[in-house]
């Protein structure tokens, strides 16, 4: 038995976008134990949503929970508030929400892929992926008016309409993106240098994924077919627009990359279907009711299942709002995935988890 060393990573580290602290216990370069500390960015949003802001303002506040999946948060909150108000939103608003969620998923997955490439030491691929990602930011800006923090979903519907010329530009930009995505798929799949850092690293088995309650691409890479888009049909009609489940079996960094790339193809198909079959109608359902009762909502964010619970008492201010973010479910699996790997591959594994700590800590 060799000597054990403790290596801290974080709270500020070049491989991390956010403050996150891992304490690795290593023995001969092998990680044998990990300690994760994720609550650096706790801000107290839930309490502020129940005391400081009115229920119509909260959808703008919960968008600031996370910059990467802000549309998922605003949409999930809007849906839970609509359940409390007992209103049905127009069909066009539902389709527009799905459009932005999928465009957001494209940009989030490409960001994660580029981050994995950077942390594996492949700087050129990072640059290439980031270059190809810019088109999704431009499209989001064209539809919503801002590159991040869209504030697109509001209680009762959506805040902006999709202009016809913007819809045309989305179709044409996606057409130019398809060969670029094929190129990326080829590099991530066949590059030998990258495979040394990614194949068989940070693996999680299907049994472990089930026991540790993993969600999102992390679980789907291990072979566990969990996706909220496959399960719920009442709030957003995912199957109508061509959703398809994607799973891999290995559960390592490589298969997580593959999951994200293959989901991009699904997302592109969904966006194309939404624009081609966009129903006519209003954007928003007006109501003067106040939230009453309790409701829960589940939504598939880019990182997995997002859960909202809200309780209203017929006043302007909600009584309770609870947010459970996907990364919170994945923390146990993140700690497990490091076991038995070399310390040098830890940054790539962290990036492949795609952790979103501002969601987790709120």
């Amino acid at each position, binding site marked *: 038995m060799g000597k054990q060393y403790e290596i801290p990573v974080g709270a500020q580290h070049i491989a991390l*976008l956010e403050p996150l602290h891992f304490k690795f216990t290593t023995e001969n370069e092998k990680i044998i134990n990990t300690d994760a500390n994720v609550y650096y960015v706790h801000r107290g949003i839930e309490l502020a949503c129940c005391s400081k802001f009115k229920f119509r303002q909260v959808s703008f506040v919960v968008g600031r929970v996370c910059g990467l999946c802000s549309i998922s948060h605003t949409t999930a909150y809007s849906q839970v508030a609509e359940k409390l108000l007992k209103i049905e939103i127009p069909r066009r608003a539902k389709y527009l929400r799905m459009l932005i969620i999928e465009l957001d998923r494209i940009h989030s997955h490409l960001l994660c892929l580029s981050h994995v490439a950077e942390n594996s030491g492949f700087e050129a691929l990072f640059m290439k992926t980031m270059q190809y990602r810019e088109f999704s930011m431009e499209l989001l800006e064209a539809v919503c008016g801002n590159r*991040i923090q869209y504030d697109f979903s509001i209680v009762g519907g959506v805040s902006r309409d999709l202009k016809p010329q913007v819809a045309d530009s989305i179709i044409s930009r996606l057409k130019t993106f398809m060969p670029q995505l094929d190129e990326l798929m080829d590099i991530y799949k066949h590059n030998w240098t990258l495979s040394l850092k990614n194949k068989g690293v940070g693996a999680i088995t299907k049994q472990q994924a089930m026991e540790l309650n993993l969600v999102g691409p992390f679980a789907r890479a291990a072979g566990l077919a969990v996706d909220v888009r496959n399960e719920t049909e009442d709030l957003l009609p995912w199957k109508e627009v061509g959703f398809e489940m994607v799973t891999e079996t290995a559960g390592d960094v490589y298969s997580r990359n593959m999951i994200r790339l293959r989901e991009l193809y699904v997302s592109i198909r969904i966006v194309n279907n939404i624009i081609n079959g966009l129903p006519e109608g209003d954007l928003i359902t007006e109501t003067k009711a106040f939230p009453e009762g309790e409701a829960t909502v589940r939504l598939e964010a880019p990182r997995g299942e997002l859960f909202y619970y809200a309780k209203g008492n017929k006043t302007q201010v909600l009584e309770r709002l609870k947010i459970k973010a996907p990364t919170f479910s994945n923390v146990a699996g993140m700690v497990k995935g490091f076991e038995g790997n070399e310390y040098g591959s830890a940054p790539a594994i962290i990036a492949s988890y795609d952790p979103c700590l501002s969601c987790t800590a709120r």
Partner: protein
Amino acid sequence: MKLASFRKKSPWILHYNAGGCNGCDIEILACLAPKYDIERFGMINTGNPKQSDILLVTGPVTKRSRERLVEIYDQMPEPKVVISCGACASTGGVFRGMYNCEGGIDQFIPVDVYVCGCGTRPEQIIDGVVQALGILEKKTKELEESVRLSKKPVQEGRQLNRRNIADEIKPLVS
């Protein structure tokens, strides 16, 4: 070595998220990417505070990240410039008044450039960083002047003491 001129041409950036929403952080990452490419100003994102000149801070300061922010600022060598990225780093933004937020980084460390917006656009970040370059140059000049003394420092025991002769400094003749 012409350290001052090199520093002007290649300022290294240190990025710290003091509890923000990630939005500004991914825009900083987008700045490094080919479309905006701040590497043409010689800037590299570095993880080491001891090698960096510009500190980019995002997020309202949460109570746990407060000490780490001050520590990182202390570890950076002079001359250094601090840029606060985004509305919540500058004033607290939407998080102002929440129970675990301090609201603005300028309560703890001196800030030189404020970049507005929620979230900040890459163009704004580049504009702020280019402004910071001017400030960095000015600070470098001030620092160099104070070191070049007209009189030799006093040897006190094992230490060189520059403090006791501070009133004898004359302006440089260039």
